[in-house]
């Protein structure tokens, strides 16, 4: 008994202090090797009186476990120390640049279209689309703009044939016509898309974007129109208050028609929407002309409603402080990087339009 106690004390003592791996392994062999102290003690087990054997075995096992644990701890300690000392030499300069990240961008026009869709989605509009190439019927005639109408001169139209039958749509209004022809009222749609007019200067480009809105039901009046646009403008510019002015105007496809101005002021050369006493024209709208409804087989005595058309690019310019319309379409890498949006910035109803 005292033998193994002695072994225990001796080796616990040996395992104190700063030991290297070699020394610990040597101790391990001395204890648990073929002729190690503990191994030998176990061999004695058979020669011990049976009444003492049980106790001896129990003590021996206890001591064995204690020493083993001690050795294992020691080994781990050494390992940790070794790793730590190794890590000391592994320091890198973390201020060196990270690996290249491919950071893409969404064009402002696309972002604004998504913002617009998100806002109108909230008040029950769905998105419709139509072809970029139109025939003169859908672009003009069905919209109450017959061939001899001077209003046609207001649109500088790109034609695709000499008979002026086929053209690039000058507005998104033909989508109204197509939507109503293929469905039944009520209609509550927006139609964003590319539009074309042969005009080019700082504020006009031969291609631009419009969003058309149409709401037809049994009792939709000008109050609904005003309410809808008021809601949209407020949401779009993310301001609490806006000033909006309806001015009578003329479009062949609406009657009464209006142009809408919003109030703004200039602060440090930047346009601030919602305050100030200056007016900025941003859209055209009106009550859909009964002739248009007749043209698409909707009974104007039963159904009525409003339509509007907004310049998407212009909205984007105002909201994000972009000065030159033409730059939208010039694919200057620097411009795209500057005005583009992170693809993760998806405008949505629950998350809001922007961060």
């Amino acid at each position, binding site marked *: 008994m005292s033998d193994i106690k002695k072994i225990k004390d001796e080796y616990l003592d040996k395992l104190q202090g700063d030991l290297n791996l070699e020394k610990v392994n040597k101790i391990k062999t001395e204890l648990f090797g073929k002729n190690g102290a503990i191994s030998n003690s176990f061999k004695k087990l058979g020669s011990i009186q049976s009444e003492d054997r049980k106790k001896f075995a129990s003590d021996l096992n206890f001591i064995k476990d204690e020493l083993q644990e001690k050795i294992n701890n020691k080994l781990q300690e050494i390992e940790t120390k070794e790793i730590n000392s190794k890590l000391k030499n592994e320091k890198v300069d973390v201020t060196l640049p990270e690996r*290249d990240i*491919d*950071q*893409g*961008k969404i064009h402002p*026009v*696309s972002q604004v279209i*998504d913002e617009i*869709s998100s806002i*109108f*989605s909230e*008040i*029950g509009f*769905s*998105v419709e689309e139509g*072809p*970029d*190439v*139109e*025939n003169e019927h*859908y672009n003009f005639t069905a919209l109450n703009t017959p061939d*001899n109408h*001077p*209003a046609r*001169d207001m649109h500088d139209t*790109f*034609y*695709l*044939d*000499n008979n002026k039958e*086929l053209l690039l749509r000058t507005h998104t209004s033909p989508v109204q016509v197509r939507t109503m022809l293929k469905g039944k009222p009520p209609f*509550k749609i927006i139609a964003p898309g*590319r539009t*074309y007019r042969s005009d*080019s200067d700082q504020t006009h480009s*031969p291609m631009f974007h419009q969003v058309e809105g149409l709401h037809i039901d049994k009792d939709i*009046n*000008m*109050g*609904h129109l*005003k309410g809808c646009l008021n809601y949209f403008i407020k949401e779009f510019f993310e301001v609490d208050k806006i000033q909006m002015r*309806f*001015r*009578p*105007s*003329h479009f062949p496809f609406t*009657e*009464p028609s*209006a*142009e809408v101005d919003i109030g703004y002021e200039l602060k440090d050369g930047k346009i601030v929407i919602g305050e100030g006493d200056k007016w900025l024209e941003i859209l055209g709208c009106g*009550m859909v002309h*009964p002739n248009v409804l007749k043209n698409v087989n909707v009974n104007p005595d039963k159904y*009525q409603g409003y339509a509007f058309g907004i310049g998407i690019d212009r909205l984007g310019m105002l909201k994000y402080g972009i000065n030159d319309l033409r730059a939208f*379409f010039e*694919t200057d*890498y620097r411009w*795209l990087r500057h005005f583009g949006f992170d*693809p*993760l910035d*998806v405008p949505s109803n629950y998350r809001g339009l922007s961060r």
Partner: protein
Amino acid sequence: MKFTIGWLKEHLDTKHKDNKIVEKLTDVGLEVESFENVSSELDSFKVAKIINAEQHPNADRLRVCDVDIGEKNTIKVVCGAPNAKKNLLTVYAGPGSVIPKNKMKLTVSKIRGITSYGMLCSESELNLSNDSEGITELKQAKYSDQVGKNFFKNNSEKVIDLSITPNRPDCLGVRGVARDLVAAGVGKLKNISNKNIKKEGYQNIKVSIIKDKNQGCTIFGSCLIKGVTNKESPKWLKDKIESIGQKPISAIVDITNYVMFDLNRPLHAYDADKIDKEIIVRNSKKGETFEALDNKEYKLYDNMCVISDKSGVLGLGGIIGGTRSGTEFNSKNILLEAAYFIPRSIRKTSKLLNLDTDAKFRFERGIDPKSIEEGLTRAAYLITEICGGKISKFDVQKTEKDKKNKIKFKLSLFEKIAGFKIKDKDIVKILIYLGFEISKKKQELQLTIPTWRPDITQPIDIVEEIVRIKGYNNIKTLEPEKIRIKDTLNKKQKLFHFLQRSVASKGYYETVTWSFTDSKINKLFKEDRDEVKIVNPISSDLDVLRNSILPNLIFYVKKNLDRGFKDISLFEIGPIFKGKQPGQQLTVIGAIKSGKVSRLSWNEKDRLVDVFDAKKDVIQTLNEAGYDKNDFFIGDKSPPYYHPGKSGSIYLDKDDIDPVAYFGEIHPNIVKKLDINTEALVNFEIYLDHLKDNKIMLKDRKSNFEYSDYQKSERDFAFIVNKNIKAQDLIEIIKSIDKNLIKSVKVFDVYEGENIPSDKKSIALNVTIQSSVKTLNDNDLEKINSLIISTVENKSGAKIRS
């Protein structure tokens, strides 16, 4: 449409301030473009300060002055005045100014070798006094804060410039504008004091309107004024004409113009002595010619409405007169015409001849057919007042009876459309002011439409009249309901938005380029699609609709490369055109990448972008959009603008007919032809219309979660195969051996070269084998191993590499 406030007040009796009037104009739908003083010649005379005056190097009596005229930089002026000295306040006239005294026009000129921009003026030159000794000296106290301001006060009247919508021809005359203002409560309409004119004798030039098919003229009124003396207009008339930016010509012409601007009643004055016998209003015959007052000769087509005499065409009715019968200063006898021409006819003729005149603009929109006598009376009166002469009785030829246009208007329609109420009597009042004749029957008005309002044809037009006069600010703002009946986006639109952001998230900048392009570049990418020419392109290098998404992308990549960018990733999602009919278009993503990956990286080796970069991005994009890449089939055929050996196509499924995407390096010939200066150029395209709807919704896409806990094994194989054998085929062969056991196949090496015959290559594959029912023992594994080897060897002619 321009007029002065004073002119307006000849028709409008009002106490309202000018600003109020201007505001009201916009409120009723007559948009005010500007409200400004007429610019005057004297505006170019500015208060100026001499900042510095030095001796002219080449002339004893001249000085070179630096003059502050209120702009950013001072101006150099050479001056001979002895009093031109530092700090003097004086009057500066810029180049282009006309000196009041001698009417001399200033130009930039060199005076003894020094350039002088304008001049400093003496009082005498400005007609202020006779003092010509030196330049004007202005008092410090009064002028020191006026530098840069106009020296002469502009006393001209303010001019209103209106933008009149095409439906309102009546407001192309000052009186029509006044009428709208009166309806809106801005004063009273003045009566025009039409002096009783004395008419003597008959208009003895016979007028006939021929009953041609689609005759463009329905009324032709005229009178003769004999014994006139045409002359320069008196000052009041000249001022009027000039105030609206027109040029006075002669009294007779100015009077006809004045009446046109005042009442929107176009008139034409002929020299009666130049008319050959009679006036015949008829359709033209093809090939007829005449010289118009714009001094151009016009060759006419069939069936244009012309005013002619026995010798031929005198003028195009309602559009332009001819030189043969024009009035001149020596004209003695005048035939004055006031007619009605049908808008459609006017528009057709002017379009065909590409001829735009003020008269055309008005007739095209619709002139009051009842204004003929009023116009003749007013013009004839003014002509005899100014030029003398005697007026004949009026002759009015008509092909149609006068008719009054009437409509019934239910009073309830107003609130139904406008959404707010106004009193019936207010409705009636507004309509009366606007010129309607009204009889009321219960809740309905029987309205006779004023003859000057061709735009009003149905009840809805009446609603508009009332709302606009009452004021759009009365319309309520009704909060929109937040109810959604239909999904905002359909599946295709959702896919569009998803792909757009998916591509962007892979490092591409989205761009939006024209739907049209340069036919020369388009040709390289159009394949067999029909070229769609634009008849009237904005410029000759944007002359066709794009048949492919690539021409513009490549064009702009080149532009950015030329800006000094090297590693560019751009994409566009938008339409391309297969033909010129509506709907013959496809929605396509094009994504292009140039240059290198890891350029100038401290820890990565740089490399050129290649076909596998494009492939990675396109596969990943499709995969993210919900298409399983394990089902994809990669074809090696692609459009000819790709590198024939380094490009491919992607089919969602092996059996699909149309590929959904292409990827690859751009054909080196095209890179060269377009002179694109880059090390490498790759691209992918996705055809959204070929992407099948994902019928399985996200919620159904998650199948039961199953996995195997049994041990998996990996085995590597290297096969030597013919070069034309594709990795995709080998993988497919191996996978199909036992779909339950073979979990994945990865290519980890491809080798050609030493130790391999030149027509062969070595492909090394790593195969993961795992059973879902048991742990495979060596025997099982050995079996599947040899099955893999034998199957691959049999099916592909490969040899296992030992």
